[in-house]
């Protein structure tokens, strides 16, 4: 066997399981179909760490969320990802909705969600969140709710897993899984892998992967959510603001991001195509009108990007974390909200399954290191520190992304970090170059130059996010004229 464990899927679920298992004496690899990890659902979601009062008690996701929320404090110390417990508010706009807030508070408190409080004093509400609509008559405040950068969190998990020996294979789409004696053979386009255990964390594709392994037990339906992101400094929010939830989702929220932008979204649109991350006129209108209900002062002129993500909704409406009848094949699927919050509890559950259901004797590695150093960011430096850093490495003095003030050094570090960036999007999501108001208008050619130089690939082969997403087709001088054109115009090729 090549490996003890193969994890399929490099989203937050796969990476968190990888990092959790990297503590043990196991040979592990992770297979990701895209050019980078954190490319699917992980990248297109709200980035909220939920307090845990929201899900129905009948679902295991509720318990996992409450437990998962608590596990973030320790993980934050170890992994240094952008995360802040700024607190969340559920906003009641009508008298009849207060009943539901009371219900959420009482059951939430009973289940161990800390600090839940209903606030009806209008002055206090205004003080907590000055941007909230005057029509709010009551809010449920959950101080343990927070915001996180879901992709930077995932990179942190992956880096730490990689530091502890987990091998990452990107652009390795799984195309077949065969049961072999005492394990599995997993085929990807480039090669074959064998292992004793396979963990399916393939998100939207997890039902398909499960079927490939012959463990056909569930379905995944894509549910799309669209978002609009506003420029920094165009508006400031203290809290994550939720409307009263609908049957399909927690509703269209208005929230600050960990990097000081504000976003609105998502709507909830059940669609058929598992790859359809397009935004729509209808959807963007829907989230605008939803967002304006909570925050009437949204800076509509300061939008810098719209995007959509797909939730992987299982037919059980709940997480599917279980050993299957194919012994050694474990599903970690149907991870929709509050999956991000629950992620460490989900990984704990996978460990339990390995030990209790599969009889693995997990032994801790001697040299396991749970600490992942914080990536260095210019924005965290004092002026003196910056001056000193430039003296040590002049690349800190060359600012590439003007909007977010990202120097060349951060971009080079993002490329050479464990499981580093290989694409323009990879740079953007790791160190924010191109994330600001000009959306890479100025810095993209320079980021491409740096990628080309550091990865030793031709300039025009630098892509946005892997195969097929090239920015440039040709050198201007080598333009392919059609044969007859060449003849008739007597053009000689340079």
């Amino acid at each position, binding site marked *: 066997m090549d490996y003890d464990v193969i994890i399929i899927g490099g989203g937050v679920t796969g990476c968190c399981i990888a990092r959790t298992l990297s503590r043990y004496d196991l040979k592990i690899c992770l297979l990701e179909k895209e050019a980078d990890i954190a490319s699917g659902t992980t990248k297109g979601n709200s980035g909220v760490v939920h307090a845990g009062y929201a899900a129905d008690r009948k679902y295991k996701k509720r318990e996992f969320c409450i437990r998962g929320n608590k596990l973030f404090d320790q993980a934050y110390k170890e992994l240094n990802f952008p995360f802040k417990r700024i607190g969340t508010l559920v906003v009641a706009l009508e008298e009849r909705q207060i009943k539901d807030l009371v219900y959420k508070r009482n059951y939430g408190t009973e289940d161990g969600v800390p600090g839940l409080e209903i606030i009806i004093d209008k002055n206090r509400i205004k003080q907590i969140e000055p941007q909230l609509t005057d029509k709010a008559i009551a809010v449920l405040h959950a101080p343990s709710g927070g915001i996180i950068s879901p992709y930077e969190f995932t990179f942190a998990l992956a880096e730490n897993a990689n530091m502890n020996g987990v091998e990452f294979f990107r652009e390795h789409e799984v195309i077949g899984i065969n049961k072999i004696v005492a394990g599995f053979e997993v085929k990807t386009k480039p090669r074959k892998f064998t292992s004793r255990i396979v963990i399916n964390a393939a998100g939207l594709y997890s039902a398909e992967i499960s079927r490939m392994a012959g463990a056909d037990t569930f379905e995944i339906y894509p549910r799309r959510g669209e978002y609009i992101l506003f420029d920094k400094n165009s508006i400031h929010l203290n809290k994550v603001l939720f409307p009263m939830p609908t049957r399909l989702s927690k509703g269209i929220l208005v929230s600050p991001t960990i990097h000081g932008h504000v976003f609105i979204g998502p709507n909830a649109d059940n669609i058929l195509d598992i790859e359809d*991350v*397009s935004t729509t006129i209808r959807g963007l209108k829907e989230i605008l009108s939803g967002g304006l209900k909570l925050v009437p002062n949204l800076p509509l002129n300061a939008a810098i990007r719209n995007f959509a993500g797909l939730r992987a909704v299982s037919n059980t409406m709940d997480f599917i974390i279980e050993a299957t009848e194919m012994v050694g094949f474990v599903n970690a699927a149907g991870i929709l909200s509050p999956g991000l919050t629950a992620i460490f509890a989900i990984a704990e559950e996978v460990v339990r399954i390995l030990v209790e259901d599969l009889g693995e004797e997990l032994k801790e590695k001697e040299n396991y290191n749970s600490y992942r150093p914080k990536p260095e960011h210019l924005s965290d430096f004092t002026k*003196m520190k910056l001056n000193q850093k430039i003296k040590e490495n002049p690349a800190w003095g060359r600012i590439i992304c003007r909007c977010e*003030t990202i120097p060349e050094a951060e971009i080079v570090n993002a490329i050479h970090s464990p499981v580093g960036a290989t694409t323009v999007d990879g740079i953007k999501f790791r160190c924010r170059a191109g994330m600001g108001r000009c959306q890479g208008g100025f810095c993209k050619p320079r980021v491409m130059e740096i990628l080309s130089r550091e990865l030793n690939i031709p300039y025009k082969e630098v892509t946005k996010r892997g195969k097929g997403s090239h920015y440039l087709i040709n050198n201007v001088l080598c333009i392919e004229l059609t044969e007859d054109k060449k003849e008739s115009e007597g053009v000689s090729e340079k």
Partner: protein
Amino acid sequence: MKSLDVDIAVIGAGSAGLGAAIEAKKQGMDVLILERNDELGGITLQCIHNGFGLKIFKEELTGPEYIQRFIDEVKELKIPYKLDTMVIEITEDKEIYAVNKKEGLLKIKAKAIILAMGCREKTRGAINIPGFRPAGVYTAGQAQRFVNIEGYLPGKTYVILGSGDIGMIMARRLTWLGCEVKAVVEIKSYVSGLIRNQVQCLEDYNIPLILNHTITKIHGKDRVEGITISSVDQNWDQIVGSDEYIECDSILLSVGLLPENELTTKAGAELSTNGGPVVDNYLETTIDGIFACGNVLQVHDLVDNVSAEAKRAGENAAIYIKERSNKEQIKKDLIKIVPGINVGYVKPDYVNFSNLENLLHFHLRVKEPDRDVIIVIKEVNKIVYQRVRSFVIPSEMIEIRTKFKSEVISPNCRELKIEVLPVSLLEVIDEVE
């Protein structure tokens, strides 16, 4: 940390920055230019088309030829400049913090600062185009850089959204390179850029201009495969059932430019509705001794006008240092210049009462195109200036140069309003009076 003292620091070495620096130097000032790019010249370097210099040099030049004259003059005058140097902060006390690879962090204390950072292009996100988010969507200026500076082609078949000048110029440029530009799609009922570009870049090459339409979906997961365009109503809302699919591998956006004023805001200067800083007739911002010129102040349509404005900024900054910098400010007699009917914005935002008899430059853009109009400046209802124009369009900046006789404007005037009215309407007003 390295510290420097200068009379005037100029931020940006494009046509505005160079023009301002040259004039300030000629006035005897000790000037330093800070440029974030690795060469002098700014965006004009990538504008290899002609049409530059007709006003300033009375001859037709390409962008690089035009700007080279300024670069040469900067070198002749031995004006110091720092390249690859990014200003990260300006304080209200006119301290500039900048970084570069060689010197690390720099602290530059200036007696006056001239802001000349230019503008940036509106992106897809700013206008919220729906659809997928593949590679193959570029702002027109970005594509221009890829083609003219880097020497690479972004694609083969294009649709250009927006009929701004750079978009139309790129339509012609790409056609010359053997690419196919399938259409220029404009949401408004008229072209956004200069009429001369509509004629010389689109009509001369039979590139279709589709008005009253916009992109309602971008297709293609990894790379652009096509777009859906739809016609829009007066509110720019999509008309249902009007969709049309166009196959293309690239989309260029030429949907407007925004003055780049992050540093200006950090310094504490106020911005006005056009996105540029609030200035008085000296081109001085609301921060004493900080001046602004070029596209950072207002997006110009001709580089020659940028140079002219820059010259004034350089001169005024020098005058400031010579006459005002050490004195208590006495700028309490400001008259507010208010955009009225069919005026999008006007610069300057204020005029000093004591300068009314000097030659004043006003720049404005109309909101909507119109024919047979009269441009008026009014003190309450009294017309103090008027000029007839046969045609106005938002893409063409209107310049007014005038002096006011002291008896025309009352001593307690606090506000002048500029309006662009149909001539017929004015006749009606006259009759009433």
